[in-house]
């Protein structure tokens, strides 16, 4: 039996349902939208030109890139101390903590969003509390605003950051920390020069996963965000379903894929450039 046959089930699924639709998408992106028909076969880059010059579309792209970047950073800042605690200090609670991180992956995202809505709404938990202690007169606009959307996005993608971090930090040999101390480095120096650089592989992977996830997220911008701050995935949906402009929606999708690929490539190259040692870890 040829070893390649092991790939058959995966290929049987991926080729008709993933690779071919991607090809169709790429083809559609160079078609022309027709007001009277659905799409007209053509070969034009007009859609791409419009995406990259029209301020509406440019805003959609820059908004999404910013949010993906920020959520990636916030998730990193929130996750790192947690992951460090889980690896270095947690003993009996370790399993429980890891399970708590997996939990959101098990519960439907819609259910979780409704949880956040209850908490962040104008008459929700947070605002009720703030108003009742007199901290604010009017409820803060958290839900249906950029802030609320970012809370939801961070929560949704947190596990994708924590798990690679836990993995990377637990690979650090504790003797290295002993060695560092023995050579005269204090706690801060040891953390900054040994622990942090050696967790870099986990940070990069975590950031890439969160970034790609946020950039293509549809549910959270839709349920917790605002139409005054357009995000990419809902915008593509509106373009296709609302405007019946399948060709320009396709070109938006292709650009999104290119952005993700470019960001992954750049971070990988930068990582290899600045951390040549990491290949062997």
């Amino acid at each position, binding site marked *: 039996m040829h070893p390649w046959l092991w790939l058959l089930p995966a290929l049987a699924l991926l080729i008709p349902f993933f690779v071919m639709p991607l090809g169709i998408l790429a083809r559609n992106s160079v078609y022309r939208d027709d007001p009277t028909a659905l799409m007209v076969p053509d070969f034009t880059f007009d859609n791409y030109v419009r995406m990259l010059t029209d301020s509406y579309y440019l805003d959609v792209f820059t908004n999404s890139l910013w949010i993906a970047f920020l959520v990636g950073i916030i998730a990193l800042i929130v996750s790192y101390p947690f992951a460090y605690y889980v690896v270095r200090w947690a003993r009996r609670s370790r399993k429980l903590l890891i399970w708590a991180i997996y939990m959101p992956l098990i519960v439907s995202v819609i259910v979780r969003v409704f949880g956040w809505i209850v908490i962040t709404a104008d008459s929700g938990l947070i605002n009720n509390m703030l108003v009742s202690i007199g901290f604010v007169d009017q409820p803060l606009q958290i839900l249906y605003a950029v802030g609320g959307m970012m809370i939801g996005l961070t929560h949704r993608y947190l596990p994708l950051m924590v798990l690679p971090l836990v993995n990377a930090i637990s690979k650090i040999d504790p003797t290295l920390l002993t060695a*560092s101390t*023995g*050579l005269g480095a*204090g706690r801060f120096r040891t953390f900054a*020069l*040994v622990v942090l650089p050696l967790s870099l592989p986990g940070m990069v992977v975590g950031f890439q996963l969160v970034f790609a996830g946020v950039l293509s997220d549809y549910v959270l911008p839709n349920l917790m965000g605002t139409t005054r701050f357009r995000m990419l995935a809902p915008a593509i949906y509106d373009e296709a379903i609302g405007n019946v402009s399948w060709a320009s929606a396709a070109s938006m999708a292709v650009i999104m894929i290119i952005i993700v690929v470019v960001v992954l490539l750049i971070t990988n190259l930068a990582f290899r450039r600045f*951390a040549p*040692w*990491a290949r062997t870890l």
Partner: protein
Amino acid sequence: MSSSNRFTTPNQPDEAESLMASNDVDLRLVGVSKSFGAVHALKECTVDVRRNEILALLGPSGCGKSTLLNIVAGFLEPDAGDVWLRGRQVNEVPPNRRNTGMVFQHYALFPHMTVRQNISYGLHARKLPADVIDERVKEMMNLLKFEGLEDRYPEALSGGQKQRVAVARALAIHPDVLLLDEALSALDKNLREEMQIELSLLLRRLGITTILVTHDQQEAFTLGDRIALMENGRIIQIGQPEDIYLKPQSKFVVEFMGSANRLSGTVGLTREGDGAVHARCGLAFTIPPGSPDWSSGQSVLAYVRAEDLMLSHEPTAVHAGEPARIVLVTFLGAKSRFVIELGDDQIIVERSGGDGATGFSEGDNVYVSFPPARCHVVADD
């Protein structure tokens, strides 16, 4: 405690003598004990390591030798007792403020740093000026012979090279005491023996006070000026390699020092009225001079090393009764090994090539002998 005066008030005239004595002691451990839960890892260990001396802590795994080393480095705190480094009591001093250099069993090189960065790590931590650091790194490169590897990462180094970098990193800080924790045991045999010799020469040339932890007798003997033999958290015997080997003071020491034949017997008298051992296997011999007093009829164990035993075709002073029988002869290169059966006991005799190894073959009836001074008698408890 009283000994602290010795170090903190050096101008008292009556303390002058002990001060001089302590001046060339780089490391002093006094009554150091350490427990992990119910396990007593160290029990009242007291030892002095003189300046430029290499002390080998030798013992089986779990004897507490690594615990002792970690207490010196400050990675562990003793439950009781004092640690003095260069005349300073350092019990409360954290490891990063003690000037000790440790070489770890698996090197513990920083994988994300080049050889140069690894070596200069401790120097940067001490905030030394850049030119001093450069100078020191060059000195270490030169000393350990790995110029040209400065910009390699540890994963691109061989085991022996990693070992050298680890030693260089520890030496670069010019430590008061160098600590080697099973530092060579990860290397394979030939390389390990090479490194033992190289390290021994290097440490003697630099004149650096060193404590070395090992379970390997050869390593301890090659590197150590003195050996401290440890068992169950105690230092059992301390002395020069020859003393440990030739004058073992307990059953544990003889047995740990390897291939000795163990003969059980009872204490009796010779015809001349001297103390003697009557071994169960039929051998009888006078108790070597310098042994403690034994009472007649006491059960004892006598140890004789394979290399101290001689074979002959005629009865000997030691062996007058029934002859023994050679059951196996093994050629081992520089020497031959004879396995002989005497009564219920099996005795191993090793003779070097030209030295009486010829003329005996399997099936021969032989008599054994040995110089009484080469026999170690201990109580059988």
